[in-house]
């Protein structure tokens, strides 16, 4: 009889995530920004938004600030982003 292996791993618990519909055009969209408090996070995101504004006439509708890079975006901020924005850009990494 051979000894069985014991699987020490666990897979993440299943959670249904629906992907939001992709915008069919870029012009005039409302941008949501989520900055994570790292150095230059807000600078980079605002510069990106500025470029999108000049190219596609987009505007920043909502800018959320995370409590820290370690924490998730809080529920109130997510609700506001959902209400006011067509898409969200989040960042940044190291």
């Amino acid at each position: 009889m051979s000894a069985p292996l014991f699987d020490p791993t666990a897979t993440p618990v299943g959670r249904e995530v629906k992907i939001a519909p992709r915008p069919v055009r870029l012009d005039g969209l409302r941008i949501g920004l989520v900055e994570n408090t790292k150095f230059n996070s807000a600078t980079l995101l605002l510069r990106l938004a500025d470029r999108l504004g000049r190219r596609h006439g987009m505007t920043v509708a909502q800018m959320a600030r995370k409590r820290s890079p370690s924490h998730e975006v809080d529920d109130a901020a997510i609700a506001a982003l959902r209400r006011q924005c067509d898409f969200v850009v989040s960042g940044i990494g190291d």
Partner: protein
Amino acid sequence: MDDPAGLIEAYFERGWTDGLPVVPPTEKAVAEMLAGAGMRGDEILGEIPGRNTVVVADKVAINAVLAGCRPEYMPVVAAAIRALCHPDFAYHGPASSTGGSAMVLIVNGPIARRIGLNSGNNAFGQGWRPNATIGRAVRLVMMNVMQARPGLLDRAALGNPGKYSFCFAENEDDHPWEPFHVARGLHVDQSAVTLYASNSLYQVYNQLAAEPEPLLRCFADALSNLGLPNVKGFNQALVVLAGEHTEVVRQSGWSRRQFQSFLVEHTRRRVADLKRAARLPGDVTSGDESSWRYLFEKPEDILIVCAGGRAGSWSACLPGWGNKWTKAVTTAIGVIQ
């Protein structure tokens, strides 16, 4: 597969180890591990919501066997996993950061003596089974259950050797003050584990200091160097007093609060220094030469623990990971009758 070496290789092949050989589990060993903490296999020890991760006792027990734990270590492992899942620890950052934190486990109370956790000579080093395997079990749970695998959800640039295991007991016998877990609000007769994330360890040497003040100036300097991870917000830090330094503090009569307050006041850098080193943005202005950036907000953010051998003029400073985004968590260890 009955060949022990072949079994060990099978665990390697599946990516279920930390790079060291593991102890292949058996039904009996896993059951005994669970019994060691008085837990059912389906008991939930905690969740990491951002990872959709639920940590169930039987997986923790399997990883504890793999790590080489004895069943009587399991209450410490379980308490450490609960601390990992505590919201104050904010698991995502210290587990995933490029900073590569070690999960430092400080064990207090009767269980430390009962299971033979080392608090003395070479407390951070090799040679003691509970020290080596309890921390290893926690890291294996992070890898196997919480998906913190190097290069994937563990993005450490360098990591550090403490990521294999970093577990020690406090030396409560030679302490100048109440034990650490009592300072954290628990009863002296309780057992507890404190989980603390740190990505570096500086050994601090001072053979001449006969009073706390010169010694603490060395700690303050070590905790405010220009390469420190966090200079923007306030930090937590762990100071581990060893041997002769412990005696210097005890004989001085300084309280824990005095010790902490001195470090709050003296752990600082000039803004000009931080700007010249590009740790803060912007050009140096005249006011920056006399403007100070303090690293600690309040005394209790400096955690002081005693450990190590009685001889030697060494202590250690371990800066915390993150600007108090991640806080040390102290968890009572369940008592098994």
